[in-house]
């Protein structure tokens, strides 16, 4: 039937068979690679979420407290104000426990120990914010001690409590009775995002507030400096500079700078911004400047790549109708390149957001309890001490209390969510402004 010199089309010849087999193998390799990558990512995410998801819920003890105007006055005039407020809380707790007959034979000190050391100051803030509360009885939600919180998150059991000097089995039993009575509640942990860091003894009160604020300040500095400098440098190199050995040297150096380990930028920042320019140590300004140096090469490289991708015919067209070089760049090339520039910038920012090493060197590891102000007359713009998200993660992983491991994982999840939002924004902007020609 088939007598043509190519043979029948219905049977595969040896060459085609071999080629198809090779193609199949290659597809399998590719698929395998993707499966491995996805599995690694999934494992990472699962372990972080398993460790950290619980940090978004926190155990509170809820009971009524009464405070009179005289008590407030006495507390405010005492030396240890939060201590005085603690006394009032303890009185309230004891009254509640006896009324509901929950205390049974638990020592009173154990019952008081179940409330976080942070409660006194929380209570005081509440009273100062609501002066009308004086003389009334109101329901108060107070942080439970980290160990009690850990008991409800599976970190602490009766066996470990027996060996732990920070918690007793009796406290756990009381906690169970409180829970049965509805006085022990788990709530969404807004404080985790707004509270500053807390001391080693109070993991339950530690939050990311200062770190998030510090990171935001630094991102503002990076965005305001790296974007204009990077774009201006790229436009000059790509559109105006004559191509000669000097531009070649600059090009090689920029590529090199992008690959320099980030800690080197920290050393540089320490030498230049802190020792020489004498900016404040641990300040978001210095952190932002260091991260700017680090991000610049990324932004320059991606901006140049997007400028390069604009067809030269567009430039010719503009010059051909008598536009100046600058008009051709700003009217035509830059608008077309802007989605790429934005994407590069956001990816650069995301990189900077997750950077830890250089910030450690410039002293952003300090324990900071005060929210840094964006501007003060003393410290200047972004001059007050602060921490940053990744540094806070590092910091918490260094602490011994396992409650901080949970916090660190929670902080990583928060950081990942920020990064996810930024990358999604990059993709969104690129899709929205992408133009075809």
């Amino acid at each position: 039937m088939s007598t043509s010199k190519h043979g029948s089309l219905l049977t595969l010849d040896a060459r085609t068979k071999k080629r198809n087999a090779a193609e199949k193998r290659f597809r399998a390799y590719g698929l395998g690679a993707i499966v491995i990558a996805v599995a690694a990512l999934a494992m990472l995410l699962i372990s972080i979420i398993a460790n950290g998801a619980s940090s978004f819920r926190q155990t509170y003890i809820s009971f009524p407290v009464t405070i009179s105007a005289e008590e407030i006055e006495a507390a405010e005039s005492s030396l240890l104000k939060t201590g005085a407020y603690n006394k009032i809380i303890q009185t309230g707790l004891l009254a509640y426990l006896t009324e509901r007959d929950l205390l049974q034979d638990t020592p009173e000190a154990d019952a008081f120990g179940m409330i976080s050391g942070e409660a006194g100051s929380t209570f005081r803030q509440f009273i100062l914010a609501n002066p009308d509360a004086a003389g009334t009885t109101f329901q108060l939600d107070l942080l439970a001690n980290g160990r009690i919180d850990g008991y409800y998150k599976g970190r602490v059991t009766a066996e470990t409590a027996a060996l732990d000097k920070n918690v007793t089995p009796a406290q756990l039993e009381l906690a169970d009775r409180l829970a049965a009575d509805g006085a022990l509640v788990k709530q969404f942990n807004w404080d985790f995002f707004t509270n500053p860091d807390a001391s080693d003894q109070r993991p339950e009160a530690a939050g990311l507030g200062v770190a998030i604020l510090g990171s935001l300040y630094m991102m503002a500095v990076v965005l305001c400096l790296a974007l204009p400098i990077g774009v201006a440098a790229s436009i000059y190199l790509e559109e105006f500079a004559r191509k000669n050995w000097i531009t070649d040297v600059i090009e090689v150096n920029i590529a090199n700078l992008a690959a320099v380990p980030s800690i080197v930028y920290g050393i540089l920042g320490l030498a230049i911004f802190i020792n020489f320019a004498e900016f404040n140590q641990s300040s978001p300004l210095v952190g932002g400047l260091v991260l700017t140096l680090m991000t610049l090469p990324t932004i320059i490289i991606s901006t140049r790549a997007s400028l390069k991708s604009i067809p030269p015919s567009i430039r010719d067209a503009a010059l051909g109708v008598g536009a100046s070089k600058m008009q051709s760049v700003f009217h035509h090339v830059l608008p077309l390149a802007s989605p790429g520039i934005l994407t590069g910038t956001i990816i650069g920012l995301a990189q900077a957001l997750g950077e830890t090493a250089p910030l450690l060197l410039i002293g952003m590891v300090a324990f900071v309890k005060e929210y840094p102000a964006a501007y003060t007359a003393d410290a200047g713009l972004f001059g007050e001490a602060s921490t940053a998200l990744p540094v806070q993660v590092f910091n918490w992983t260094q602490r011994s209390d396992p409650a901080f491991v949970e916090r660190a994982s929670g902080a990583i999840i928060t950081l990942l969510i920020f990064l996810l939002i930024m990358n999604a924004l990059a993709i969104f902007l690129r899709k929205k402004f992408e133009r075809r020609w």
Partner: protein
Amino acid sequence: MTDYKISAKGVQVYYGDNHAIKDVDVQIEDKTVTAFIGPSGCGKSTFLRTLNRMNDTIDICRVVGDIRIDGEDIYDPAVDPVQLRAKVGMVFQKPNPFPKSIYDNVAYGPKIHGLARNKADLDEIVEKSLRKAALWNEAKDRLDAPGTGLSGGQQQRLCIARAIATAPEVLLMDEPCSALDPIATAQVEELIDELRQSYSVVIVTHSMQQAARVSQRTAFFHLGNLVEYGETDKIFTNPEDPRTESYISGRIG
């Protein structure tokens, strides 16, 4: 000074060490169509681009010699190439509309040169230019549509409209019909004939027929040399140089 619109003397162009144009003398008259023909790589585009200094954008390109438009040396340091290019418009080989609306494509030149005092002026310039480029009927209902969404031939006519919107005195066209079908080509050729009333047109073409149809004068380039330049009729019927003869009869190319 002279009756010539453009007069080039002793022009040499180098791309690095590559001597692309060798000692070319050409005088181009006003209100005529001049065709540049020659085999690929002989330097037609290169020479055309010296006339509006588009070669300035190529770092390695060096131009030597004397090129005058209306008697003024366009390579004089006092000349701003931007001003020159408003006077000497250009249509490129490959259609290159801006990725903007049809209207904005045409209006861009007049806008940056301040040729329109108000929106009505600008509208008029856009309509006139599009009409001249034989695109008005197809484009009038979709002036806001992107210029890049037009067909190749329509895009090229849009580029022509864009070039004439700045009211140049000389129009350089580098193979403007290479992407067009015969009908669009005929339209462009008709347009070129019309443009001759007001402009001096220089057109690079690979089509002998086109050169013969639209031009009054023809220059034949070969390996960077201007071999022969004269009346189109004479070049095509009675060339002096044997190289010209063999090229137009299809023996070199």
